[in-house]
């Protein structure tokens, strides 16, 4: 499989954007272009008819957007690998729900696209594109904006999440990334065996908590492995004490 060329479908509603992607793909020997679609419904019909290995999928489109297409694909047998191509990262939040091989920002450079294609080849080679069957209720990975790119962050690597107005700051090994998401929505999608909410605006990974500290008058703090103190909100105290008791 890996030796063969990836049969690829381009989906974008702007003719110039399709043209640009065609020109870029013509320069990548691993790509075999088999068609283009200009809206979400047409994309699903073509995927059904042509069974491509890879879809280069725009997000903002008429008649079902790119996220909707990828979601519909999640329970299709032998579904194609998906690379999201979008002009702006505001869709990143939704994109982590539908496993994508990569996430590139338009206008994408030839070099960046080649890297994304490389990932797609690997993924197809591993046969990772089995039906996803919403493998788990919990999010496994995030696509987060970093410099002028989208990078993948594995959920298990997140150490803490802090709310900053409309954004969440994900702390990952000394780095931090901002995503546009509410903390409650995020809490609902993070594995509760691994993460715990300590405060209205803070979620931490459980194994990061070194100890709990009572500072009198019912005020509790959690001391994290890096020495940071996180105040524990009153409504979250019972849950925090329960995990430390284990």
């Amino acid at each position: 499989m890996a030796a063969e060329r990836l049969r690829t479908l381009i989906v974008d509603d702007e003719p110039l954007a399709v043209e640009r992607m065609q020109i870029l793909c013509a320069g990548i020997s691993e790509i075999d272009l088999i068609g283009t679609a200009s809206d979400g419904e047409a994309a699903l019909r073509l995927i059904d008819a042509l069974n491509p290995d890879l879809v280069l999928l725009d997000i903002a489109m008429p008649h079902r957007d790119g996220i909707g297409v990828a979601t519909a694909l999640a329970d299709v047998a032998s579904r194609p690998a998906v690379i999201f191509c979008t002009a702006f990262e505001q869709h990143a939040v939704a994109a982590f729900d539908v496993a994508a091989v990569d996430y590139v920002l338009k206008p994408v450079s030839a070099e960046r696209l080649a890297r994304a294609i490389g990932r797609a080849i690997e993924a197809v080679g591993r046969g990772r594109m089995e039906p996803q069957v919403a493998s788990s209720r919990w999010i496994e990975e995030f696509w987060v904006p970093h410099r002028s790119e989208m990078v993948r962050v594995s959920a298990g690597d997140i150490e803490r999440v802090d709310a900053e107005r409309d954004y969440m700051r994900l702390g990952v090994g000394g780095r931090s990334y901002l995503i546009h998401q509410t903390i409650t929505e995020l809490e609902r999608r993070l594995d509760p065996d691994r993460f715990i909410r300590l405060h209205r605006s803070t979620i931490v990974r459980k194994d990061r908590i070194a100890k709990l500290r009572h500072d009198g008058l019912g005020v509790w703090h959690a001391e994290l492995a890096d020495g940071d103190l996180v105040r524990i909100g009153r409504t979250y105290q019972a849950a925090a004490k329960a995990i430390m008791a284990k």
Partner: protein
Amino acid sequence: MAVENNRESTPFTVPHRVAMLSIIAFWVFYYVSITLRSLIIDLPGFWFMLDNRAWVSLFGIGFTYVLYRALRLLCHHTLRVRVAAAFLFSAVAATAYSTVNYLSFYVYDPQPYELQKRAGEQGPDKSKEKEKEPANLIAENAIGWYFFFVSWSVFYLALSYAGAVRASERETARLRAATQTAELRALRYQVNPHFLFNTLNSISALVMSGKREDAEAMILNLSTFFRSSLASEPTDDVPLADEIAVQKLYLEIEAVRFPERLRTTFEIEPAASGACVPGLILQPLIENAVKYGVAPARRPVQICVRARVNGDKLEVTVSDDGDGARAANGTGVGLRNVRDRLTARFGDAAWLTVGKRAEGGFTAMLTLPLVPNGC
């Protein structure tokens, strides 16, 4: 002294002149009322007392001035501290004043007092009342005067508090104006990132496919559009003709992105084209028409911009015949921005009405006062 640095001066001060006037007014009021009282009840030694009382009142003014300076020292403290201090300092001032009073009427120039005493001795009860210790007399008097000083202090605190409230109202108004300017600037400079990056993507496509002239035209359109949206002050008015020219540039760029789907018409009355409108006021309306009318459609969509003069009003309409779902009440960010800017510029004299059209699509109409020239 407080006048020149009114702005940063402490929250609780009264202009020096006002404070002095209030002190003098209190004492004049006292002097006049007590003199009238003497006249009415016809106390003996009236003329001696008049002179003496004037001197003592001058001391009173002095003590009240000291009280004022002391309270002024506390102008950084909370009102509670200042009220407590007012009651305490007033007691000191009253005692001091009462002492001077005693010295003046009983020791330095006891003549009028003697007259009164003699008059008093004629009465049956008052014979033994006199010959009190000076300390007793001073204390007794001080209690009466205490209320006089307290009432001035409280009056002073009320004045300073009113001043503080007025200053904070002025500050609030100033901040509100600053916030509004900042908001307007933010609205003005708001660049739709989708538009920018998609346009750059299109230009890149034109370059890659060798359409040099098209790429060049699009780069020029883009730079002219951004220059006009970034250059001038956010609150500046522009002639409607200029505003329409900028929107045409924008639509030309979008037409390259959506070549099969975007159609535009402009119907601008000559009388309307010179009218002044807030710069880029149409931008959110046009952007919405593209975003909700054109982008989700698979067929050609017509965007129509009309402007006409109706009496003393200018009416500008942006409509499309797309079928994108949109809140009919127009609660989106873009529409709110337009409304805020209209209110900031014209108050109640301008408004925006939006709604679905009976024949399909969406329409937004700006109604604003006709400002014929001068922008």
